[in-house]
C-alpha cells in the first residue's frame, strides 16, 4: 500500500487516528473511534471503494475527517499531495471543488425553508465561478440531467415537495456541480426505499464511468457494497481488518470477522446454516490491547489477546489483520 509516490495519488489517508473523550476530563475515558487507518485512491483510475462495518466501527468518523468536518488526533489526509488540515484560505475552495459529500438523510441535507433550485444555483455560483445567471442555469441543468432530473421539474420548489428518492438524486446533482474528483457517500441509500435504492446505486456506477469520479461508499449494507465496489475495506472497532478487491474479499473472506459478517447477511436464495451466539462485550473491545475481535473469534489463541495483528499484504493483493495469515 505504501509504494506509490504521493503525487500520483488522488487521496491518501496515513495512519489516521481519532480519539474521543467521553465524560469529564478527570473521570472520563478515551475511546479510539478510528485507530491507525491507512488507504489510498489513485489518480486517473476512477474506483469505488466501500468502507463497510457495523455501527460504531468508525466509518462515519472516517468520512467526517475526509470531509474536514472533524480533525484527526493523529495521522494525516493528503488530497493530491496536500495535507487537507493545513490548507490556506484560498485552497479551501479547491478542496470543495475536488471532494464532495452525499449524506444519509436527504431531508436533513436540505434546509426545508430554502428552495431546492436556490441551493443548486448557490453551489454553481460559489464553486464554479458562474458569473451570470445563464451560466449558472447551464451548469445546474447539466448536473440535474446527469441524475435523470430536469430544471423544469425542480425550479421554485421546496424539499418537502419531492420524494426521498428524488431528493437523494438532487443531493447527488448538487455534489456534481463543481465536477469533483471524489464523492464521499455516507450511507446514501439506507433512507431510500428498496424499490428505488438500485436506481441510486446504478447512478454511482454511471457517474464513475462517465465522469471519472471516484467514490468512497460508506455503508453497513454488504449487498450493495458488493454490487458497486472495486475495492473494499472491512472495519471493526476502529481498525481495518481486511482490505482488497471487493470480489476477492467478499467471495473468499479470510479475516474471521469478515467471515462472521458475511455469514450474518440475510441473503435471498441461501438459508442461514447453524446458529450464531450473541455476546454483550461491545465496550471491552474498544479497549482491548490485543486483537479487538479476539473476544468473539472462533480461532482465538493466547497471543491474539496480547498483541494486535498488523495489516499484512498477501499474494492476491489484499491485506488482512490476523495472525493466521
Amino acid at each position, binding site marked *: 500500500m505504501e509504494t506509490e509516490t504521493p503525487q500520483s495519488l488522488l487521496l491518501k489517508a496515513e495512519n489516521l487516528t481519532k480519539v474521543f473523550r467521553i465524560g469529564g476530563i478527570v473521570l472520563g475515558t478515551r475511546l479510539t473511534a478510528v485507530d491507525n487507518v491507512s488507504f489510498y485512491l489513485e489518480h486517473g483510475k476512477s474506483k469505488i471503494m466501500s468502507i463497510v462495518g*457495523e*455501527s460504531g466501527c468508525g466509518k462515519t468518523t472516517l468520512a467526517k475527517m475526509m470531509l474536514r468536518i472533524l480533525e484527526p488526533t493523529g495521522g494525516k489526509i493528503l488530497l493530491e499531495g496536500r495535507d487537507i488540515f493545513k490548507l490556506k484560505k484560498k485552497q479551501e475552495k479547491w478542496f470543495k471543488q475536488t471532494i464532495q459529500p452525499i449524506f444519509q438523510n436527504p431531508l436533513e441535507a436540505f434546509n426545508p425553508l430554502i428552495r431546492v433550485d436556490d441551493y443548486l444555483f448557490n453551489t454553481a455560483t460559489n464553486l464554479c465561478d458562474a458569473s451570470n445567471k445563464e451560466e449558472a442555469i447551464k451548469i445546474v441543468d447539466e448536473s440535474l440531467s446527469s441524475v435523470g432530473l430536469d430544471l423544469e421539474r425542480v425550479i421554485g420548489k421546496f424539499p418537502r415537495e419531492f*420524494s*426521498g*428518492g*428524488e431528493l437523494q438524486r438532487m443531493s447527488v446533482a448538487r455534489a456534481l456541480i463543481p465536477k469533483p474528483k471524489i464523492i464521499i457517500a455516507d450511507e446514501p441509500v439506507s433512507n431510500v*426505499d*428498496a*424499490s*428505488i*435504492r*438500485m*436506481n*441510486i*446505486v*446504478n447512478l454511482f456506477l454511471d457517474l464513475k464511468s462517465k465522469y471519472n469520479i471516484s467514490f468512497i461508499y460508506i455503508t*453497513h449494507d*454488504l*449487498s*450493495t457494497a*458488493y*454490487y458497486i465496489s472495486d475495492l473494499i475495506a472491512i472495519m471493526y472497532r476502529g481498525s481495518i481488518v481486511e482490505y482488497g478487491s471487493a470480489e476477492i474479499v*467478499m*467471495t473468499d473472506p479470510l479475516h474471521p470477522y469478515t467471515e*462472521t*459478517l*458475511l*455469514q*450474518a*447477511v*440475510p*441473503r*435471498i*436464495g441461501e*438459508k*442461514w446454516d447453524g*446458529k*450464531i*451466539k*450473541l*455476546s*454483550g462485550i*461491545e465496550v471491552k473491545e474498544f479497549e482491548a490491547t490485543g486483537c479487538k475481535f479476539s473476544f468473539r473469534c472462533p480461532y482465538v489463541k493466547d497471543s491474539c489477546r496480547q498483541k494486535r495483528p498488523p495489516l499484512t499484504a498477501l499474494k492476491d493483493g489484499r491485506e488482512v489483520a490476523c495472525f493466521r495469515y
Partner: protein
Amino acid sequence: MCASVMNVIDLVAAYQTSERNIVVVDRLNLSLPKTGIIGIAGESGCGKTTLIKVLYGLIEPPLKVLSGDVLIRPDNENALSLLKMSEKEINRLRWRFFSYIPQASMSVLNPVMRIEDQFFDQMVGEKVGKSELRKQLSEYLNRMGLPHEVLRSYPHQLSGGMRQRVIIIMALLFQPRIIFADEPTTALDVVVQRGILEMMRDAQRSLKNLLVVVTHDMGMHYQISDFMVMMYSGKIVETGNAEEIFKDPLHPYTKMLISSLPRIGDKLKREGIKGSPPSFYNLPQGCRFHPRCPYAVPICRKEEPPVVNINNRSVSCHIIG
C-alpha cells in the same frame, strides 16, 4: 386450512388531519393463522406499521379506524371484536394474549425504573412466583447473550442492541399467542440481527404461537417468514407461502422488487423500479401501482384490481386475474 387466531375484515384506518382523513390502510382483509411466522413487507409509508398498531389495539389520535373489524379467535363462539373493547380490556390482553416489539425500544421501557422491576411490574396477577420468573429470565438472558447485570440497570445504561433484546424477552415471557414485531432489528448490526431473529424463530417454534414480523428487508423475510403479505400503498397486493413468493412472485411489484435486490457473488446488473410510491394525498385512479408498472393496460388506470385467489395464494392485479 388451519384455524385462525385473528381476522381482519374490510379494515379502513386513517390519520385525521384538519382538512380530511388520510386513509393509509384501505379495505384490508387478512386472516392470521394460529401458528407460524407471517412476514409483512412493503416500503416506508405503505401502511404496514399502521396495520400492526390497529391489530395491537394502539389506536390513538390522529390514527382512527373508519370501518371494518378485527376479530380475536374468530372461530370461537365467543369471538371478540378488538375494536369494540375498552382500553382496560385491551390492556388485559397485552403481554399475555399478544405482545408488541416496536422499532424504537426506548419508547416501551420506563426510563426511571430498573429493568428487573419492569419485568415484575408486568407480573401482577400472574400465578408464577418471582423465583420462577427469575429462573425463566436468566435462561432467556443467556440465550440472548446478555449479562445478568442487565436486570439491575436502567434502560439508558444499555446499548440499543441490548435494550431491543430486553424488549424481546419481555414480549416472549408470558408466552402470548401472537407477537407483533415491527422492524425488530432494523437499528441493529447484522450479526446481532441474525442472533435475535434465530432466537425469535426458535421461540415461535417451541411456543407454537404466531409471530408477525414487519420489515422492508426481503432478505430477512427469506430467512424467517413462513408466509408473506406484500403491501403497497395501503393495500395488500399479494399473499402466499414465502418460499413460493420468492420462487415465483406473481404481482409485478413483488416481481420487480425481488429481482432488484443485489446478491453477493452475483454481478448481474439490477434495476430498481422507476418512479416512487404515490402520496396518500394524491392517489392514482385504478391500481395504485400502475404509474410504475411496465405491464399496465388501460383497465389498470381505471379500475381497482380485484383480489384473486390461486390455490393458497392471493394476488391483486388485472393482468393475473
